[in-house]
């Protein structure tokens, strides 16, 4: 190998397709040919199909369930109700948030679409027929869908199972529909500063309930092999290892007898983090029938029953000096958690990382209080393409900055720049207890403002307002600004766990004798391109081409334990584990190279894909040569083979940030908002694959566009879901989706092995306030301070109407 004509160092780097390379995705060859392998594609011999009888009522007593007609239908194998699950103690299950949740209605139902009975049949059409034949009698109860009304003294009691319990998993419950009060910061000091402040801005900001709505719904195939006593569950799981542990704890089946497989997943966005009744029922049905049971929810079930997001009523108060220096922030949230507290947050954080609410600003004192409340709505509270409750926090602070700017009579861009945490303040201790790892906000901000021609935009906007007042146009311009800071990469085991499992992640690498490799991780891709990017991290660490490295995830029998993929944690945690495992490989490789080259290992240095004798560049061993030697030579003091495993417990979270500007043209008479320009600058630390980063930003911004401009899960007063199909639930098409311009700065994380911070969720976190601020900004000169999302055409029209702009 050494005799070949030497190739340049540059060419060797290029050949690896490592960090920074816009490597094409290895996943795409199968996906573009329709050869993906999603859970509903799986067909096992004798497989049965499960389907749910669901409640049409939001709050009712179940007085009787008659399954005789359903059972009489040919092809129906079983109909399960809570009564059938009770002997197994599976009629209820624990939630990720320390509460419990009914698997099947136990005496009453608490939200529309709640699972009442599970029908199992030999055909999906027969199962659907049988659902209609199950006769359930209900006695309606008063419904509460407003969290404020739920806390009134005479509000109906929703959770009768909690009667008399004055404390829950997160402390005291002060009312029968109250779940917890979670507090962070110095309340008294914050109040003192606000009381004596020169300027105070106050606003109630509602971040409405919505839904992640991945294109593939949730589902699974549970298969109990009675001969071997092994349960295999294929499913749409963003955290397969956690599902295995939960399945073991619930079923009593030993964990080594359970295999959980996440095949290709058709988008997750948080929807596929939770454990749902469908999974439990499919498992029970498979154990009972001895046959594989498939359960796939339809779109209406997905939108009404699994995993809503947001639904935070946020009362913000921000204090400042007259010249615009922020002195305090206070925030109280009334959090609507629905019927069961099934939020997917690290155990000790019932409101997630909402306390990142001080955002990008150096705020000396702050307080956050979050009251969790039960209502007759679906449970969930997942992080929809954001870290835990981070988008809510970013939305609140970015709205409060705008409101404060109005109060101060200052430009909102200037208020931000004046209060940014300065570059020299990192690592920065926030008033609410976080240690921000790195940032250079002023550089990013100035770059963004310059890129969009901010001064000119403001001038054009002012001219447009004058023309509007003169009656020459009916369109206004809105300029939406946002500078967000995320907190991702959960998280350090000392304070982050899910059901007791520390939130580390893992990577196991095997180098094959001929210089290729396989690496397995505890995470699972849902479109993020892990098979492409994790191979790039490894290529740069161990000097084998990314094309020669297979990445595998999602099979708990083969992959090392990990907490899965959500909250932008894959790159910060599993990516770090990958780099660290790679370094272990390299450390052993160095010893082998030293033996082969007959030098002291300290006399070697790493160079792209090889160890070179210092000062003698012609003497080297490539990683491929070393790999071969590790399997065919007896090297004194070293075991054969070249493998490594790393479990990475991150020392801190990572703090990606970004500066976004949205320019809108709003038709005052129709409420139609055209996005004229959207500029997104993201700083996610070290950039692994710029092509994939850009794709993530486009996708996240489009979800933000949807959420800000029309997407919601709304309920009427008796608890009917008003947006239960894609007819009513806004998913933007190519036609209305804006065009984006992406940009970046690169401020590596000092504590991450390769400096990467994660990017998948930043555009959703930063995008929502950018779109919403643009709508607000268009009407600012006419006196608008706060209007709730989503800003659909009707609501924008209503803003204009209420401001008297329709004459």
């Amino acid at each position, binding site marked *: 190998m050494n005799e070949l004509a030497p190739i340049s160092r540059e060419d060797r780097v290029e050949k690896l397709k490592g960090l920074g390379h816009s490597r094409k995705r290895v996943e795409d060859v199968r996906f573009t040919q329709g050869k993906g392998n999603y859970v509903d594609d799986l067909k096992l011999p004798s497989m049965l199909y499960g389907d749910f009888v669901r409640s049409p009522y939001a709050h009712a007593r179940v007085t009787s369930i008659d399954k005789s007609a359903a059972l009489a239908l040919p092809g129906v194998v079983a109909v399960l109700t809570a009564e059938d699950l009770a002997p197994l103690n599976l009629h209820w299950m624990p939630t990720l948030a320390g509460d419990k949740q009914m698997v099947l209605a136990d005496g009453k139902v608490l939200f529309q679409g709640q699972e009442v009975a599970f029908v199992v049949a030999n055909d999906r059409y027969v199962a659907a027929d049988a659902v209609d034949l199950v006769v359930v009698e209900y006695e309606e109860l008063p419904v509460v869908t407003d969290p404020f009304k739920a806390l009134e003294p005479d509000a109906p009691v929703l959770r009768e199972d909690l009667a008399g319990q004055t404390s829950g998993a997160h402390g005291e419950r002060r009312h029968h529909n109250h779940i917890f009060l979670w507090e962070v910061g110095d309340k008294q000091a914050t109040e003192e500063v606000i009381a004596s402040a020169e300027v105070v801005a106050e606003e109630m900001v509602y971040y409405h309930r919505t839904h992640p709505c991945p294109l*593939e719904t949730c589902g699974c195939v549970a298969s109990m092999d009675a001969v071997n006593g092994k349960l295999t569950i294929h499913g749409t799981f963003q955290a397969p290892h956690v599902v295995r542990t939960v399945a073991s704890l619930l079923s009593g089946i030993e964990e080594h007898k359970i295999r959980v497989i996440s095949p290709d997943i058709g*988008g997750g966005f948080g929807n596929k983090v939770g454990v749902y009744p469908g999974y439990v029922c499919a498992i029970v049905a498979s154990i009972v029938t001895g046959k594989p049971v498939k359960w796939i929810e339809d*779109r209406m079930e997905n939108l009404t029953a699994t995993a809503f997001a947001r639904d935070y009523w946020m009362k913000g108060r921000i204090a400042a000096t007259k010249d615009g220096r922020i002195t305090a922030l206070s925030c109280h949230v009334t959090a609507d958690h629905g019927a069961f507290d099934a939020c997917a947050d690290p155990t000790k954080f019932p409101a997630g990382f909402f306390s990142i609410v001080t955002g990008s600003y150096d705020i000396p004192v702050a307080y956050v209080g979050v009251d969790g409340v039960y209502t007759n709505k679906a449970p969930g509270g997942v992080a929809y393409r954001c870290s835990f409750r981070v988008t809510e926090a970013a939305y609140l602070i970015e709205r409060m900055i705008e409101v404060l700017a109005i109060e101060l009579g200052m430009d909102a861009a200037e208020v931000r720049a004046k209060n940014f945490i300065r570059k020299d303040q990192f690592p920065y201790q926030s008033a609410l207890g976080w240690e921000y790892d790195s940032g250079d906000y002023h550089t990013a901000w100035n770059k963004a403002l310059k890129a969009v021609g901010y001064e000119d935009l403001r001038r054009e906007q002012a001219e447009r307002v004058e023309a509007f007042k003169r009656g020459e146009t009916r369109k206004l311009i809105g300029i939406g600004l946002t500078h967000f800071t995320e907190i991702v990469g959960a998280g350090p085991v000392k304070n982050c766990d899910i059901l007791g499992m520390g939130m580390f992640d893992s990577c196991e690498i095997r180098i094959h004798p001929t210089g290729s490799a396989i690496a397995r991780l505890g995470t699972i891709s849902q479109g993020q391109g892990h098979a492409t990017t994790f191979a790039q991290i490894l290529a740069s660490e161990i000097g084998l081409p990314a094309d020669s490295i297979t990445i595998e995830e999602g099979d708990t029998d083969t992959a090392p334990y990990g907490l899965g993929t959500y909250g932008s944690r894959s790159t910060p945690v599993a990516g770090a584990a990958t780099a660290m495992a790679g370094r272990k490989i390299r450390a052993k490789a160095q010893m082998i190279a030293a033996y082969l080259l007959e030098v002291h290992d300290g006399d070697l240095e790493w160079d792209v894909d090889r160890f070179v004798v210092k000062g003698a560049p012609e003497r080297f061993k490539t990683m491929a040569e070393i790999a071969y030697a590790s399997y065919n030579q007896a090297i004194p003091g070293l075991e054969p083979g070249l493998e490594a495993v790393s479990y990475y417990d991150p020392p801190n979270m990572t703090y990606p940030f970004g500066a976004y500007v949205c320019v809108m043209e709003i038709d005052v008479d129709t409420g139609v908002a055209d996005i004229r320009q959207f500029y997104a600058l993201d700083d996610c630390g070290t950039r692994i694959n710029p092509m994939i980063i850009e*794709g993530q930003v486009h996708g996240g911004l489009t979800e933000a566009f949807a959420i800000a401009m029309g997407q919601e899960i709304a309920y009427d007063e008796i608890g009917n879901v008003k947006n239960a199909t894609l007819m009513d639930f806004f998913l933007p*098409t*190519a036609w209305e989706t804006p065009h984006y311009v992406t940009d970046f700065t690169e401020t590596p994380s000092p504590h991450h092995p390769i400096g990467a911070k994660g990017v998948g969720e930043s555009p959703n976190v930063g995008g929502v306030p950018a779109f919403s601020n643009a709508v607000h900004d268009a009407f600012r000169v006419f006196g608008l301070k706060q209007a709730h999302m989503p800003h659909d055409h009707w609501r924008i029209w209503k803003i204009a109407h209420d401001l008297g702009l329709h004459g």
Partner: protein
Amino acid sequence: MKKMQLTLTVNGEAHELLAEPRELLIHVLREKLNLTGPHIGCETSHCGACTVDMNGRSVKSCTVFAAQANGAAITTIEGLGSPGALHPLQEAFREHHGLQCGFCTPGMITRAHRLLQENPNPSEEDIRFGMAGNLCRCTGYQNIVKAILAAAAEMNAVKEAAE
């Protein structure tokens, strides 16, 4: 329920099969013919993940009865390109990062294939309008549009060279 005898020509191959009158084309394709490329995303014609080509038109196979397809010629994603020779659209989606989770991709490419036959020289606006029946939750469409423009150019160049 009494079954009907149907004849479908799928990706050039004739199939005789029995299906209930209420059975949806997507279920016949996926479960009887094992063509799992087209997916089910909504069952209400909104998302387009189930898009296939039926007698030269794009249809959403989740809201077509198999019986309506009796005698029809159907093309699914499996009928475009092959592992060794990707269709220019498949190649362009890969080249321009026009997909992420891959769930919408078969329907998206099948629809784009028909769109380029309806309009071989589409503008960006034509593509955004012509693809509006297919939802994608991952990409924000920007790279899908780019991929279709690139595929159109490639296909036109090949056609020109052949003429």
